[in-house]
Every structure is written in structure tokens, then in C-alpha cells.
């Protein structure tokens, strides 16, 4: 496989394990305070404040807690976690170790996407080196009483296992299906114990924050979206790859960087994200504006947007865990609707019904997968009305 452009300059500039050493000099509260001060939010897409999550877990009374690194990078169009794991696995493991110290966990698990099985040997080698260097094991870095180790567990190929409770079910050996929430993993997670689940990139940034300080992190980004974001940009562009950008960067700026001057649309956030037309390229990549876990897919002028929608829906029809009604059946009906549209057999009324169904799926599905599965379809119908409406059946109005 040809690795695309990878720009992870900030990670590359970090001193190894300086963040962990700094953390071990601090109190647990101070570590979480530093994380909270940085304003960092989860990099996996949902954007939950990391400090709050850690604090909730640290506050639970359980003696057995877990730190899980979510490396089930399955969102179509994301490959930044893979790039991070290949180049900066140490930083990720360092972040896990800091998290473990902060919340009081003794065991860490890297849940690795089944398709990344080939990364396992090199990751195991990194872990072995860390153990040898006393960054893992008994009395980590000489910190008396802080015992922590990390193991790798492979996923089995389900996209939904990127959802943290489905991931935990899968870790436990069950079918990967999201749980009811509440309770949340921070108090009832892996094996019913308090568990922090963080994305690969989040943990890498955590190590950086502990090295450079929360204030340093906040110097980039926007008020609500602090720091830098690693993006995987692909599709109809000259220079696809993994890039580092400050939050707040406009879509137009991204397109300029990757060489896509004439893009028709950009899918922000992968299959579960939203599709922006060129009129909205001025929008910013940020939790409060165009949010993404890292996937940016560029569509050129030649792309049929209905085909794009069909492709994403096909994905969800297959990847829905099949548990809840809105997601399991809703996606199948939307996909059939797109088929009807492409055949010119979908009435305006039925299209409206499908859009309303999409809203129901967003509101009533059990987990984030179902809730976000109609996003691409809805945003394409909204922004590419002319292209879609041209296919609506006039006969059956």
C-alpha cells in the first residue's frame, strides 16, 4: 500500500515520555486539572471533554479500573490513527499510562481494528521496549505503587465497535452491540468496572499536554475547539494524506492544501458526517461548526451525489449492529429510497417521508451510529436539491 502524505510535526517534536515523567510528579487532581485547562475534547468525533471524562472515572470508588484506547478506526475516510500508531505509538501508550495514573487504573487495553492486525507486531515491540524501560509494569518510572500494563486486543471487523460501549461488549467477548446509556463506561464499563475509553489521537495529545502544559495546547484552535487536529484527507484531490491543522481552519484552506481547487462537495466526518457543498467551504473545522473525527473526503465535479448517498447508506445497512429498529430497518429503507430516486420512481411525497424518517433515526436510534447514519443522506438532499430533485418522479406526485 502506498502511504499517503503524513504530516505529524507536533508529535514528532515531542521529547519521549517527558509528559509521563511530568505527570508522575503531579497529584492526580493536578493532572486532570491540566487536561481540563487545555480544553481538549475527544478526537474520535463525539467531542466529549477529556478532563470531565477522566474526572468522572477518577471519582468512582472502584479499585479495578481500565483505560482503553479506541483504535477501532473504522470511519470511512479516516486513517490518521493508523498513521499515529505507526509513527508515534509511544506517545499513545504514554497517554494511556498518564490516564491510568490519573484515574487509578492498573490495566490498559488497546482495542485494535481487525484490519490493522498487521500493525500488531510493531506495537507489541513498542510495548516490550516500554516494559523493559520501566514505562510499564510494576512501579512505573519508579513511581512506587503505580503498576500499569497494556495489552492489545483485536476487533473482529465491526464498524459499530468504534462506539465505546459496543467496543466494551466486544472486549468482553460478546457480539459488538452498544449498551444502554446511562450507565456510562466511566462508572460501568469493561467487566462492569469504571473504564475510560479514549481515541488514539486524544491519548497522543494528552501526552503532549502533560509535556507542554494546558496553556500551550490552548494557544491554537478556537475557544470551544482547542488545539490541533489531525485530519485524514482523501478523495478527489492531488495530495491526499494525514495533516495537522489548528481547529478553526476553513474547508477552503484544507482544499487548497491538498490540491482540490474545483471540489464539488466535501464530506466532513466520514459516512456518519455531513456533506458540504462549495457554498459552505468557508466553514471552519471545529466541534461547534463542521465537526469531524478526522475524516475529510473530497468529491470532484464529476461525482454523482446520489451515488455518494447510496454508497454511504449501503455502508450503514451493512454496519448497523441490527439491534434497534430505526437504524436496522431505517437505513435499509433509505437505501431503497435512493434506489427509487436514481430510477426516477421516488415521489416528492415519499422523499419528504424519507427525510422525516432520517430525523427519527437521528433522534431515536440507540447509539451514535444510528443517530448519525442518515446525516450524509439528509445533507445531500438538502444541499444538492437540484441534483436530487431532477430525479423525483413527476408521474407519481
Amino acid at each position, binding site marked *: 500500500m502506498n502511504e499517503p502524505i503524513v504530516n505529524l510535526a507536533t508529535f514528532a517534536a515531542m521529547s519521549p515520555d517527558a509528559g509521563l515523567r511530568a505527570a508522575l510528579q503531579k497529584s492526580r487532581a493536578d493532572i486532570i486539572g491540566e487536561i481540563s485547562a487545555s480544553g481538549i475534547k475527544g478526537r474520535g468525533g463525539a467531542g466529549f471533554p477529556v478532563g470531565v471524562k477522566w474526572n468522572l472515572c477518577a471519582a468512582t470508588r472502584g479499585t479495578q479500573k481500565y483505560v482503553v484506547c479506541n483504535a477501532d478506526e473504522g470511519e470511512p475516510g479516516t486513517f490518521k490513527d493508523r498513521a499515529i500508531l505507526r509513527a508515534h505509538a509511544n506517545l499513545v501508550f504514554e497517554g494511556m499510562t498518564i490516564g491510568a495514573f490519573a484515574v487509578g487504573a492498573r490495566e490498559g487495553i488497546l482495542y485494535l481494528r481487525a484490519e490493522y492486525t498487521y500493525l500488531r507486531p510493531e506495537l507489541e515491540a513498542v510495548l516490550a521496549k516500554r516494559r523493559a524501560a520501566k514505562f510499564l509494569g510494576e512501579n512505573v518510572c519508579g513511581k512506587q505503587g503505580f503498576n500499569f500494563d497494556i495489552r492489545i486486543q483485536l476487533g473482529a471487523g465491526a464498524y459499530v465497535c468504534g462506539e465505546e460501549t459496543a467496543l466494551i461488549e466486544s472486549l*468482553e467477548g460478546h*457480539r459488538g*452491540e452498544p449498551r444502554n446509556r446511562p*450507565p456510562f463506561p466511566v462508572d460501568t464499563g469493561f467487566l*462492569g468496572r469504571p473504564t475510560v475509553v479514549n481515541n488514539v489521537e486524544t491519548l497522543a495529545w494528552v501526552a503532549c499536554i502533560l509535556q507542554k502544559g494546558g496553556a500551550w495546547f490552548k494557544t491554537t484552535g478556537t475557544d470551544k475547539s482547542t488545539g490541533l487536529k489531525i485530519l485524514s484527507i482523501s478523495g478527489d484531490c492531488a495530495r491526499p494524506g494525514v495533516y495537522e491543522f489548528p481547529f478553526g481552519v476553513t474547508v477552503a484552506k484544507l482544499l487548497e492544501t491538498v490540491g482540490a481547487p474545483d471540489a464539488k462537495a466535501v464530506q466532513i466526518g466520514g459516512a456518519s458526517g455531513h456533506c458540504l457543498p462549495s457554498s459552505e467551504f468557508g466553514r471552519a473545522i471545529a466541534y461547534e461548526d463542521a465537526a469531524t473525527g478526522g475524516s475529510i473526503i473530497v468529491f470532484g465535479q464529476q461525482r454523482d451525489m446520489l451515488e455518494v448517498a447510496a454508497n454511504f447508506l449501503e455502508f450503514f445497512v451493512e454496519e448497523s449492529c441490527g439491534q434497534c*429498529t430505526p437504524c436496522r*430497518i*431505517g437505513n435499509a429503507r433509505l437505501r431503497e429510497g435512493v434506489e427509487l430516486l436514481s430510477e426516477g420512481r421516488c415521489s416528492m411525497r415519499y422523499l419528504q417521508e424519507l427525510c422525516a424518517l432520517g430525523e427519527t433515526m437521528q*433522534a431515536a436510534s440507540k447509539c451514535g451510529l444510528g443517530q448519525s447514519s442518515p446525516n450524509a443522506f439528509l445533507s445531500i438532499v438538502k444541499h444538492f436539491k437540484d441534483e436530487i430533485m431532477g430525479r423525483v418522479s413527476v408521474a407519481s406526485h
Partner: protein
Amino acid sequence: MAENNRKLDDDTSRAPVSQRGHTVARVADTADIGALVSVNIDGQDVKVPMGTTILEAARRIGVRIPTLCWHEDLCIAGVCRVCVVEIEGQRTLQASCAYPITAPLKVKTHTRKVRQARRHIIDLMLSEHYGECYSCARNNNCQLQALAQEYGVDFFRFGHPAAPRHEMDLSSHSVLRDMNKCVLCRRCVRTCIDLQEVGVLEAVGRGDQTRIATFMDKPLKDVICINCGQCINRCPTGALRANDPTDEVWAAIDDPNKHVIIQTAPAPRAAIGECFDLEPGHALTFEMNTALRLCGFDKVFDTNFSADLTIIEEGTELILRLYKALVEQDKSVALPQFTSCSPGWVKYLEHFYPEYIPNVSSAKSPQQMFGAVIKTYYAKLSGIDPKDIVTVALMPCSAKKFECNRPEMCDSGFKDIDYGLTTRELAKMIREAGVDLPRMPKSDFDDPFGTATGSGVIFGATGGVMEAALRTVIEIVTGLKVENVFANADITPVRGFDGVRVVEIKVPQSGPVPAMFKHLVKDWKWLEGATLKVAIAHGTANAKKVMENIKSGGELAQCHFIEFMGCPGGCLGGGGQPIPTSPEIRAARARAIYSEDQAYAVRKSHENPAVLKLYKEFLTDGPCGHLSHKLLHTHYTPRGKYIA
């Protein structure tokens, strides 16, 4: 005395956490457990204990939220999403069945957004649900149909399947599966894996290919299904139903050359009224006798007769085992002795604990004993060729259908029981015959087996077999009237709905050996001062607990006799009983059964005159004698859990 079968965070549960409830709130401070929290639902304030779900809170104040995947007996799945509500300040709707209240909330249960979502969800289910209501076993008793009506479904918004997608599984004698009607609420999965801890059914596949399947898609007859039918009772649609032989029964009735006999078990009579819109807990024993005759059955017998017979045989077997173990010091005797009347339990044991088959009483179940007696003794008595006799058993049970088809159940030289009918199927026959059951005049059972005792009746409830056995054993061993040991002969410690109950009864004295048992023991001295330790378990999840305890040499290994019932609540909660079921409904049926026991003049099996007559005239070598061994006892098949 409603039972509590719901398992929350129970370590023994085999259900995945995604399908297990967490209504016991994880509160920050343990002091908050049990604390009250106030919630506002549709403008009404209500205070509920921390951890109460929104659904439960709403029900308390009379706000009705529709449900589908939720069932009182089961852990919470939160998958159908029919019960979604809006919580102020939350972006998405929440499943009220799965949302524990741990902080004050403002909830709205029927906003436009909620109504639209529910309507869509019902429409989506209908878009996958193949089949016409007219031809469905659950027509008029279907939760999907009821929801469609409630939400005014007047057209199939997202279409309706024109052809079936799945082949039906009609392999089982007991449970038939039509996955074309399945809405994937997973109540059957949770029933099987969590309520019963059997684990035959599981969701397989993903997305729109998700379906409920058996191991490797094997037909139900070839997997470890115990035929208990609890999944049928909890299926909201017609996807699961019992194997219904009513057509064959009608054909036999319509055949003038056939003498069609029906025996009726105690549990159906306590529940059949529910099929005729009566409140649960209303026994229709004698009205049903009249209705059965109107349907055309030639004779109506009471299974209580053979229940009493079972007590004599099974009780004798117990005494013999105890004698061998205690007096002859024979270490090979298998104790505790397990009851054998529940065919669901028997098959469960054959699959999961085949090494304990020697512990199971060799006495047949009352249903099968009756069949063997009818086609031998009764045939002779009435001068009817047994080949012209058709024996039908009205049972609360789907496993009884499998039982009567076991190849070894032909000891009369014919198939001892031809057809097993469930309560639901009989209700249908009665309706088809134009009979308004609750308004029927009362009439008695037919002779020669009409006389029954209260002990037979209570077989229908968990603990009933044990109580009946104890009444008899206490009297014949001590010579005391059981009324003098337990007030009113009610052995209440064995009653109730606790999953596992252990009772110890001291034998205070020994009496003379009654004539019937003289060929077996010469005196009871060896039992004097002994403590009889017995246990009762209902539902196979509880049976599993008992078996695991015995296997590990725990307290229950010291028991002498254990009653096991495959279904929660015993027969009254059987897989052939009216739908729906719930702890309250089962408790009401139990009340009906115990009040019927009170009404009997004879309440002890060994005093049943018809049983005594049978031993005098037919089974002349006595209980556990040669003929009774041939006709009334059986053997079992070690099946194991591994499927070929």
C-alpha cells in the same frame, strides 16, 4: 407474593450486558441508594426511588408509554425504541424502559417528535413483517397489531413485504418458528439465555441481515431446546408458536369409530378464563368439563388422578432409595431424587446434566401415566379396543407435546398419549365450537378417574408436587394425620415463588406400615427422628443454580428429594398458557389453584379412592411393582450439549 424473576446485574446471568438492565442506579454515593428523586412527566411531578426507569415512573402516575421489546420478566434491551420519550435538555430521544432516573428530569411522553418517531418505528417494523393477520395464531393477541392500531396505521408507509424471506422451522414437536414475523425485539433471546439460561436462540448477522437463529441454523429439534415454550409466551408477534394439533383432534372427534378422551391438567383450568376476557385467577374447572363435552370429547378425565398416582409411585421410589441408602448403606443409590413430571426440566437435565439421570425419578409424568392406564386398564374396563382410543392431554405446556412423542412412551402397546393440547389451543377449539366458556353450567369429571384430590390440583404450582408428596409421605410414615403436623394440611414453607426453596422436616415418630407398602418395607423405625431435607426450584435458571450447588458438593447435595419445574412459577406459567404472562398473572393463577385445593374433600394422594382401586384391581403387585414398572415408569436419554 409476586415472584421476582428479573435479574439485574446478576453474576449468573448469561445475557450480554447490552441486553441486561441497569435499573439499579449507579449513584455517586451509596447513601443515595433508595433515596427519592423527583421527576416531572407530562407536567405531573412524581417522586421515585433513585434508579427507577422513566417507564416505571410513568406507569405509577397513569401515564401510558407503549412498549414492545420490554417485558416484565426479562432484562432490559432498549432495542425496539417504541417507548422513546423526550427529556428536556437532551438532543436525542431516550428509551424510557432503559433510562434510570438518577437526577431530577423533565420528561415529555407524546410530543410531536415522539409521536412521529413511534409511528415511524412501527411503520418500519411493518415494512419487514411478512404475513397476514387473519391467518396468524396471534391474531387479536399481537402487540405489533395492537401498536399499529393504537398509532392509527392506515397504510404501509414504508411498504410491506410481498414474499417471505425465511423458511419456517416446523421441525419441533413443541415450538414452531416463523422468522418472517419476527420484529427482532429479542424477547425470545432474553427468555432463553437469561430467564431460562438455556441459550438456544441468539441474534446473528448484522444490519438488515440480522436475524434470530439457532446454533448453525440447525432445526429446533436438533439443538438443545428444552421445549419449555417460554419464548412463545413472550413473543409479541406470531413468530413463535406452539405446534398445534387441533386439526387432528377435531378429526378424531369427528370420526365415529374413535373414542376420544381428554385429560385436563390443573394449570389450564386456572388460566383458560384469560382467553375469554376474564381476569387472571378465575378457575373454570367444571365449566370447562361441560364445554369439552360440547366439543365432542367422549370422556373428560382429570389429570389429578394420575398426579396422585405419580405421588404414590414417585413417593414409593423415594422411600426405596432412602431405605437402600440409609438401612442397606448402598452407596450406589442416587440421591437426591429429582422429580420427573416437567418434561422441560427433564430435557434440560438430559442436555446439561446427563450424568445426573440416575437421580431422576423413573416415574412417568402424570400425563404419560394416564395415557398408559387409559389404553390398558380403562380399555379393558370399558371394553373398547385401545386402537380405537384417542388420548388427548390438555396441558399448560408445549414440552408435553414433545414428551408424548418420545419413542419410549408407548408402553401400553400404543402411543400412550396421542396429542398434547395447550390451554390456548383448547380455548380456540371451544370458541370454534360456539361455546361461551364462562357461561357454561358446571359439570363433573367422568368416572372411573373422576375422583381427584387437592394434592393433584396443586401440581400446577411450583412446590405443589413437593407438598403433595410430603402430605402422603408424612402420613404413611408417621401414622399421624398431616393436619396435625401442618395446620389445615397446608405445608406453606414449600409454597411461594422464591426461585429456590429449601425445607427440612423432622420425622417425629414412626407408624405402622400401610398394607399397600408392606411388600416393600417392614417398618419405618429407620426413619424415626430423621430429618427429611427437600428443595424446590422453578424455571431452569434456578434449576441450574441447584444443579451447580449439587455438583460442587454444596448444601443441596444433602437433600433427599428435589422438585424441579422447567417453567417460572411451575405449570401455571407453562409455555402453553394464555398470553401475556407476568409475575402478577402467575400469582393470580396460583391463588386459583390453591383455593381449588381447599375445596377438595380428599386432599391427600394416597386417599384417592380411584387410585386405591387401580392398585386393587389392576396394578396388583403394588406401587413400584412389576406392572407399574412396565406401564408407569420410564427411562431417559443422555443428550449432552454438543450438537452433531
